[in-house]
């Protein structure tokens, strides 16, 4: 593939300051809010990344308490996802379900989160019991809420209980006041709500950058796939922007708790609010990295121009772009949604980035979109993205190659508060069911769910937002749709199992793993279900060919889930780790780990916390939390080998058409990998041979990965492994494991 060349002259001329304004909604919200409770607190700044206290709010009783962050919490869990999992563990029992009041939503920024000198340092981690998987889900998210929460005085926010009223929680870190307010009327959808609340809670226009809103949307309340939007105020555009904690239905829990929004108003951000141990090192490492972006990004990934959508055409060229529910890996129309288009469509001559100092700046904004459907038809809006996952999930996987429709789908997912990745995969499943006659117009209530029918796709989403029709069934997700269809006698349950791209109840994200054994494991041998947060191995496996042997792949499934977990403990974004690399990276040993950047992270963590770690200790920090999460899953009734089973569509060709689309490759594998002669075999026999070979290969991979991770063949962390990690200090963790040994 040749490098895409950016031509500034082709960037569309769109006024990025113009969009529909919501004055009436602002007034409605202003007059209808009612104070329920006000509590004073002492604002504080962190010391070496930690405040030493968390904030617990019971939205049912309105009780507000502060809890200390103990040395053991820091030692065992570091922060971020670690703190979230630990608080959740203490809040729930094995019998707790997602919609029980004791379930918590925990937002924790991590100790490094909030530094401004390095790219991708504004991430907070959100943890809850997932409505989709019924085990803990964690989702990392940008936007300003996490850093502003920390600079107001808290290392984590725990939300427990259920409110009968529509509730707004306002944390004013400038004045030391926390307010619980009822907001019975006014908008729910995020693009309006976050804009309105930012204006309401800022003291003046200049203060808007100090306000961040967490909200969801209308569709989250009628589905299991709700997500959260975290806002920040974009001063140049003059509007709020949104980043998403997408996976696993956290927005559904949020709405079930009766929460309309969280608002944090923090102090004005400066470069030293985290009060790091060694600001000079942060500055030096940060400037070195900014220079690397300046010099290398234009001829590497072009993240500053394209965002993550830069890999759309690469995935297509390598037959890895999910197309028509992961049946195929490419499509002739991909060029219409490739990076060459998005770099023209997105506004370029402005600063992007979902936290200060992010020189990678992948949060591209597409301005001036006039909506064609739904309650905001005719409105001019700014859409974030589309990121790669959205282009592939809402686009190629559903056969949608019209970029304006793709943007509209992206917009409505965001504002309605549902996960774009999940929606893409579940809609692709619905469309394949429609293709195969499992669904039809009668069963969908009139929706013609043919490939590429974006209007029907959007109508299904609008139905969900209204809590009506087939959209409401779709909003249950693939796992439950399979059951519903089977119970109604729609389709062969085995076929539904094969083509329904979910594991543990979570929908797959947007990579074709059929030919990548490493990514098959990267999806299904995960703690929280198939996403690319834990083990995004497809690129190094299939494009860069850096893990060719079986042993390499098993080792990668040990190392990378741990390495990548660490970003969510400390408060980092993963993208700056390998979406740009030093010019000499390819010549370094273990180039796929990007060793210079690993050292950057070690240095940044040490310079912030004063806690001297090595790259090996970094992995141990992760391993504690990763294994703790595995035990948590087991405690909640999942987390064993049977739950790491992958749908066959993720491993090989389910249908004749899929086999025939890659017949030459598959026939060759019958000769070279299985030692059989395909010439005398029927297509069904060839498919059966592939299935045996591929399932056996996945079984062997599972064995090897479990062994490397220090788990039993049933996927349970051994007592030795727990002891090695110091988790034996938690008797309740050991008790869970003992029951499964």
């Amino acid at each position, binding site marked *: 593939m040749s490098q895409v060349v*950016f031509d*500034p002259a082709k*960037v569309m001329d769109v006024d990025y300051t113009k969009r529909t304004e919501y004055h009436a909604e602002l007034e409605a919200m202003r007059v209808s809010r009612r104070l329920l409770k006000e509590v004073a607190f002492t604002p504080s700044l962190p010391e070496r990344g930690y405040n030493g206290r968390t904030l617990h709010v019971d939205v049912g009783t309105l009780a507000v308490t502060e809890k200390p962050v103990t040395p053991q919490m820091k030692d065992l869990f570091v922060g971020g996802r670690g703190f979230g999992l630990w608080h959740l563990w203490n809040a729930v029992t094995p019998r707790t379900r997602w919609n029980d009041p004791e379930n918590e939503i925990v937002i924790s920024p991590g100790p490094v989160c909030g530094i*401004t*000198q390095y790219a991708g340092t504004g991430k907070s981690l959100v943890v809850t019991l997932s409505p989709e998987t019924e085990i803990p889900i964690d989702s990392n998210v940008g936007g300003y809420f996490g850093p502003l929460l920390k600079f107001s005085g808290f290392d984590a926010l725990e939300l427990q209980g259920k409110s009968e009223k529509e509730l707004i929680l306002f944390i004013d870190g400038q004045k030391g006041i926390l307010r619980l307010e009822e907001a019975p009327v006014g908008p729910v959808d995020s693009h309006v709500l976050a804009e309105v609340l930012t204006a309401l809670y800022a003291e003046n226009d200049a203060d808007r*950058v100090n306000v961040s809103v967490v909200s969801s949307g209308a569709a989250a309340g009628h589905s299991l796939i709700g997500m959260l939007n975290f806002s920040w105020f974009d*001063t*140049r555009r003059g509007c709020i922007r949104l980043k998403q904690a997408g996976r696993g239905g956290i927005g559904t829990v949020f709405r079930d708790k009766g929460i309309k929004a969280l608002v944090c108003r923090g102090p*004005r*951000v*400066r*470069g*030293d609010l985290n009060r790091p141990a060694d600001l*000079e090192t942060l*500055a030096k490492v*940060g*400037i*070195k*990295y*900014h*220079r690397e*972006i*300046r010099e290398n990004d234009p001829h590497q990934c072009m993240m*500053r*121009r394209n965002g993550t959508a830069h890999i759309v055409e690469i995935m297509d060229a390598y037959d890895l772009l999910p197309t028509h529910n992961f049946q195929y890996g490419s499509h002739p129309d991909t060029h219409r949604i490739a990076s060459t288009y998005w770099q023209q469509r997105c506004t*370029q*001559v*402005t*600063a992007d*980035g979902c936290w*200060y*100092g*992010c*020189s990678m700046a992948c949060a591209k904004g597409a301005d001036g979109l006039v909506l064609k459907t739904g309650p905001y038809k005719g409105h001019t809006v700014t859409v974030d993205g589309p990121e790669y996952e959205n282009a592939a999930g809402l686009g190629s996987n559903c056969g949608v190659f019209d970029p304006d429709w793709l943007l509209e789908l992206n917009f409505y997912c965001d504002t309605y508060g549902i996960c774009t990745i999940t929606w893409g995969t579940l809609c692709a499943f619905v469309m394949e069911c429609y293709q195969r006659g499992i669904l039809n117009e009668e069963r969908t209530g009139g929706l013609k769910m043919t490939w590429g029918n974006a209007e029907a796709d959007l109508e299904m989403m609008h139905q969900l937002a209204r809590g009506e029709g087939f959209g409401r069934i779709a909003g249950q997700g693939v796992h439950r749709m399979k059951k519903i269809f089977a119970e109604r006698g729609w389709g062969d349950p085995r076929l539904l199992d094969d083509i329904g791209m979910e594991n543990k109840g979570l929908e797959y994200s947007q990579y074709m793993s059929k030919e990548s054994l490493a990514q098959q494991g990267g999806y299904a041998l995960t703690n929280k279900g198939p996403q690319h947060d834990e083990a995004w191995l497809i690129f190094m496996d299939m494009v860069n060919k850096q893990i060719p042997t079986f042993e390499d792949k098993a080792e990668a499934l040990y190392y990378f889930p741990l390495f990548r977990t660490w970003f969510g403990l400390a408060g980092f974004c993963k993208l700056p780790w390998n979406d740009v690399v030093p010019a000499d990276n390819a010549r370094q040993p273990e180039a796929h780990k990007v060793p210079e950047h690993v050292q950057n992270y070690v240095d940044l963590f040490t310079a912030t916390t004063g806690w001297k770690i090595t790259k090996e200790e970094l992995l141990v920090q992760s391993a504690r939390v990763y294994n703790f999460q595995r035990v948590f899953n087991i405690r909640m009734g999942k987390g064993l080998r049977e739950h790491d089973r992958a749908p066959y569509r993720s491993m090989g060709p389910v249908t004749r058409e899929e086999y025939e689309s890659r017949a030459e490759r598959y026939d060759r594998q019958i000769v070279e990998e299985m030692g059989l002669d395909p010439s005398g075999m029927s297509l069904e026999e060839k498919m059966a041979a592939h299935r045996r070979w591929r399932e056996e290969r996945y079984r062997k991979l599972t064995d090897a990965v479990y062994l490397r991770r220090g788990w039993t063949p049933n996927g349970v962390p051994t007592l030795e492994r727990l002891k090695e990690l110091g988790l034996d200090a938690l008797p309740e963790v050991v008790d869970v494991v003992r029951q499964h040994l």
Partner: protein
Amino acid sequence: MKQLRIDVGRCDYGRHCEHECEHACAEKVFKLKDPAMAALHIRELPDGKGVAALCDQCGDCVVVCPADALRRNKPGVILLDKKLCVGCYMCVGFCEKDVFERNPEWLEPYKCISCGICVKVCPRAALEIVDVPEPAPRII
């Protein structure tokens, strides 16, 4: 816009001067003792030539600043609003001339403000402030 320029035919890169330009910039403008911390850099090279690094007010730093803390004033000179600066140093890392400066003692970085003090003290009259058209913001 007001832009600092150097006449490379006149400047001899410190062979017969005391780097008065850097001293004056560091001491009088930024109150720093070390001339290496000036907002312009004049260096003699071993091959007998030299190199000058000057801010030309190109505006790249304005485009990359995530806090909107860098703006042009009426004469077109880019100034940092310290009240808005978040200390991310993207302006430092993205400056192709490496003349967006940082003092480890300060949180905010600093840069040439085209004040002309260096022009006044140059014994060889190699520096001047010129008035040139403002460039369009560059996509970087």
